[in-house]
């Protein structure tokens, strides 16, 4: 791994985003606006406080998934990836560069959304805001890594966009946001146990309800981080120097 190339890659991706201010505004503001909408749909601070923390994890996960899968697919389709693969850049240099750039965007996104929810919409959390941000960041990295992996199976941008509901929605439905995981049928409960987003939402719920950082919380965070790492390595395996 070469830190100079990693940083150059992160800087390059941020420069690309800078030239596309509309995307940046959508990424940073949209989750907050959806939270505002949700607050008034529930019309109750208590009901909102139960659902909002989970959403702070779901938004960066879903948005980073789609942004990364489209960006990576674009690199594959415009042959910039082929060109990079002839150069002295390691696959992990490229992926970690991506992770840094999109991780920074995710932090901005979650910070704005959390500020909205905590400062204005009446969300109260018992735990630390920093732990909340950390979980959301891990979610964003998980979404990014899965998006990168998924992009290898898409031939067109249409297909890449369709992978979002395929990879993301089942996790959102089963993560405990709509129905506590313990109350699901056995098969669904088992399924939710193998999906990483479930652990992120468990962790977020815990941070909302208590300020205790215990073994369960740490275990949940480690599971999410490990899943992100595995997805990143799977993503790296889909980047090939030689293609047919």
């Amino acid at each position: 791994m070469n830190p100079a190339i990693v940083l150059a890659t992160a800087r390059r991706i941020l420069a690309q985003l800078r030239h596309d201010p509309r995307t940046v505004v959508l990424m940073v503001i949209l989750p907050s606006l959806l939270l505002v909408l949700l607050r008034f749909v529930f019309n109750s601070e208590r009901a909102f406080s139960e659902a909002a923390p989970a959403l702070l994890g779901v938004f960066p996960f879903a948005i980073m998934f789609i942004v990364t899968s489209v960006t990576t697919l674009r690199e594959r389709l415009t042959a910039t990836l082929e060109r990079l693969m002839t150069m002295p850049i390691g696959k992990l240099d490229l992926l970690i560069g991506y992770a840094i750039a999109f991780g920074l965007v995710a932090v901005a996104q979650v910070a704005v959304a959390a500020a909205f929810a905590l400062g204005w919409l009446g969300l109260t959390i018992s735990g630390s805001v920093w732990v909340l941000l950390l979980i959301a960041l891990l979610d964003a990295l998980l979404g990014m890594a899965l998006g990168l992996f998924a992009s290898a199976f898409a031939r067109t941008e249409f297909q890449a966009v369709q992978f979002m509901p395929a990879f993301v929605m089942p996790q959102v439905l089963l993560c405990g946001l709509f129905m506590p995981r313990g109350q699901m049928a056995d098969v669904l409960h088992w399924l939710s146990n193998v999906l990483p987003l479930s652990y992120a939402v468990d962790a977020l719920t815990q941070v909302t309800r208590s300020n205790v950082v215990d073994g369960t919380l740490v275990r949940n965070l480690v599971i999410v981080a490990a899943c992100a790492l595995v997805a990143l390595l799977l993503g790296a395996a889909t980047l090939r120097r030689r293609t047919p």
Partner: protein
Amino acid sequence: MTHAVVVEELLVNRGGRAVVRDLGFTVPRGTVTGLIGPSGCGKTTLMRSVVGVQVVAGGVVTVLGLPAGSAALRNRIGYSTQSPSVYADLTVTESLRYFAAVLRAPKSDVSRVIDEVGLGRHAGKVIGRLSGGELSRASLAVALLGSPELLVLDEPTVGLDPVLREELWTLFHGLAERGVTLLVSSHVMDEAARCHRLLLMREGQLLADGTPDELRRRTESTDLEQAFLRLVREREEAVRS
């Protein structure tokens, strides 16, 4: 080592079809070698094999004394793909600065290559807003970063006006005089005459390999277009008999 590229019995299959069959040639150092043939004849596949991004089914490709695709070759080869491979949402300078960082080329290279491809006036423009010819020059500029010993350029002059084409060919010859080896593909015959050596390709095979003069003499033709047609006919007759 007098040869920059040595290709022996190369075989490449794509989509269940042999697109390059039993192909062999050498490229001497410090020359401009033209890879000429109609669109779809396997030029791009061959170039991809030389830079080491193509999965090959058989044969040996040796580049600068090493097997094609070796890690040690990655900052010794400049490669320009046929479709422009640059970031459309960056400016010319930003895009080149990134590739220069990856290649660990000096920062001053960025303005040097911008001048070499004549994009000085457009350095600060977003690549997506450039014209087709400017876009392909922005992509070519990336291949010139650092000090590559071998340049593999896939159709670098498509869509350029004659003045610019002339300038680029002058640049190519200047590089060759400094010892750089160039493998340049084209489907237009008038560019073939500017090469030191020609590889004529058709349907995945090599039709001929020689200097433009040799090819004209051998086929008793005055221009290379005609020479190419004669070689195709010869090959067809040889297959039939």
